[in-house]
């Protein structure tokens, strides 16, 4: 009984402590990301990148004369948590906008709350075509599968690789499904034959059974709709099978980690991106150098998008000239040709970005830029 009272008191005390606001002269931005759980490595990248952007802005005098502070909350990749975090953020009057989440299911789950209370949710990585249109306050900057699927089909499979047939292996989550759907739809529209589609569950590490079955259908190429972790393993298993097939994948695989985890098994893999480590642009190189220093590893597309998200948000706040949430939203929607490190960003009517890509190939263990459509 006494124990219980003590424990309850402690819990209440801690809860109250953690909700104490901070000083009046900071602008606070919320960040919802998977810091723990199955997607923790991706959430960490968000944290580093956003903090980098914040530090940079603060070093140059901050925003509207105030310093910015980012409030990080762990969504664990769980849609329920993302919704709870959304509630917490919108409740806090000092938070002006939110960046996040990593997965589309989290973004979609939190969207009704941000929309109801009128706070911007800017997702660096949600590529679900239903996300941005789901509300006026929803924005995504990574581009959607509506653009990526056809690009993968036309410019990579047909144009660059000259394939007539392709098989699809995809991860059984919402992103995987949407990616696969858009790719297959574009393939049908462009006369590219899809020999078979097979999915695998998250957390699955053995693809040999699926790959053996796919190999039996004799495709010229295999489209791997997965994150770089799984993609690297899939490629390794393809190599171990002694199967000489063309490898292609969406931009989710593009990162230095793919090269590290895949080794020479990913040699020749073709993908698309709008952020490359060997981009000659000096701002990109500065970003990469600083990220390396802080995180001890190379940034990937997600990190670059998170960085740009913060920068774009800051730009919108500057243009709005106020910390009013609705004004920030309007200024954000009007963003045109914002020079991000991931390219020039303009929001469509629904709050999406139509991306143009570069074609990247793994050559001699490095990423090489083969075609560049981003400057078109």
């Amino acid at each position, binding site marked *: *009984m006494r124990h219980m009272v003590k424990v309850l008191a402690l*819990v209440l005390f*801690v*809860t109250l402590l953690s909700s104490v606001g901070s000083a009046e002269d900071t602008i606070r931005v919320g960040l919802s990301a998977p810091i723990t*759980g199955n997607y923790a490595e991706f959430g960490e990248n968000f944290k580093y990148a956003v903090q980098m952007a914040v530090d940079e802005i603060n070093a140059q005098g901050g925003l509207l004369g105030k310093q910015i502070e980012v409030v*990080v909350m762990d969504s664990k990749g769980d849609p329920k948590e993302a919704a709870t975090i959304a509630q917490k953020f919108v*409740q806090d009057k000092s938070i002006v906008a939110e960046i996040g989440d990593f997965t589309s*299911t989290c973004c979609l789950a939190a969207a009704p709350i941000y929309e109801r209370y009128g706070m911007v949710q800017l997702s660096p990585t949600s590529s679900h075509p239903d996300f941005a249109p789901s509300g006026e306050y929803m924005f995504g900057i990574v581009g959607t599968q509506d653009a990526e699927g056809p690009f993968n089909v036309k410019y990579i499979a047909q144009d660059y690789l000259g394939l007539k047939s392709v098989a699809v292996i995809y991860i*059984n989550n919402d992103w995987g*499904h949407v990616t696969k759907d858009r790719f297959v739809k574009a393939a049908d529209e462009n006369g590219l034959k899809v020999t078979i589609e097979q999915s695998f569950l998250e957390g699955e590490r053995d693809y040999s059974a699926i790959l053996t079955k796919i190999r039996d259908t004799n495709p010229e190429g295999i489209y791997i709709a997965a994150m770089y972790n799984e993609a690297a393993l899939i490629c390794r298993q393809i190599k171990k099978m002694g199967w000489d097939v063309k490898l292609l994948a969406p931009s989710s695989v593009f990162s230095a980690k793919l090269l590290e985890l895949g080794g020479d098994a990913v040699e020749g893999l073709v993908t698309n991106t709008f952020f490359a480590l060997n981009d000659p642009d000096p701002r990109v190189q500065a970003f990469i150098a600083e990220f390396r220093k802080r995180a001890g590893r190379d940034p990937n597309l997600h990190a670059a998008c998170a960085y740009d998200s913060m920068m774009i948000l800051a730009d919108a706040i500057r243009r709005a000239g106020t910390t009013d949430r609705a004004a920030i939203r309007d200024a954000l929607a009007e963003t045109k040709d914002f020079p991000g490190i991931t390219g020039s960003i303009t929001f469509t009517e629904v709050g999406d970005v139509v991306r143009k890509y570069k074609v990247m190939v793994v050559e001699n263990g490095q990423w090489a830029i083969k075609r560049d459509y981003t400057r078109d």
Partner: protein
Amino acid sequence: MAWFKKHWFVSTTFAAIILLVFPLLVDNDYYQRVAITVLLYMVLATSLNIINGYSGQFNIGHAAFYCVGAYVAAILATRYHLSFWVLLPISGAAASLASCFLGLPTLRLKGIFLAMCTLGFSEIVRLTALNWISLTRGPMGIPGIPFPEVFGVPLKYNWQFYYVILGLAALAIFVCHRVVHSRIGRAWIAIREDELAARSMGVPTFLYKLLNLAFGTFWAGVAGCFYAFFSSYVSPDSFTLDEGFSILAMVLVGGQGTLLGPIIGAFFLTVLPEAFRFVAEYRLVIFGLAILVTMHVRPQGIAGSTTLSMRYREAQKDDVASDIETGGIAS
């Protein structure tokens, strides 16, 4: 604990008043949301406690029934526009039906074997939701579940949902209290203490165990319906094994076999991770530690009675020492 029992009327009334005026005292949507979550898990933990604590069966796949309730509500609401109030009992019934489907073949099994079946069932339900795309939209989930309506007025504010779940929780606990103290409840306790003896005294144990399972899972289904309408979105990744384990932890940490136990367990294990959000990376570490520490310091649970646990120990010593009665490792 004893103090509460002696002054139960005062403390219950006091708690009731606080609960009723909570949204007025705390005009903070986030805290209201936490309160709603706590109440929701109270219903879930209570429903599991009916099964685990009162008839001695061991269900560790409770997420399955929560999932069934939520999806039934989501599908019927988005496709056929059934109202929230109609769907509450329907979701409950669906979950009960699912549990009968599981229970009919498996209730004959002893302890740990039944537990494993429930675990398998939990995953089957989740994987079905994940793969039956034409029905459930698979991993994309079902968005756009409309707000519940009261006489045509949509409920969309947290404080409104709060009163709904408060009502549901009160109803659930009240009904459970009545059932547990009725003949049926006594039969359940008899089965829990010694199933063989109960049967030899004429209690139709199989029927009662099935009833117990159906009754407990009914409330899990109801909770699922509320969850669907509160979040406006359901997806399979909310119903993993971990979710079932969390509910189980709430029951055990709070105290199995008592009505107060799951209430306290739900409160403790929901508020704790929220309170520790500021040490984001260590949140789950602390959660795991909390479970371990509670089991060591107070194994009967925070609200469990010491006599109950001692009775367990006695029963264990007389009973066969091992739950797994097989031929051993070398057979």
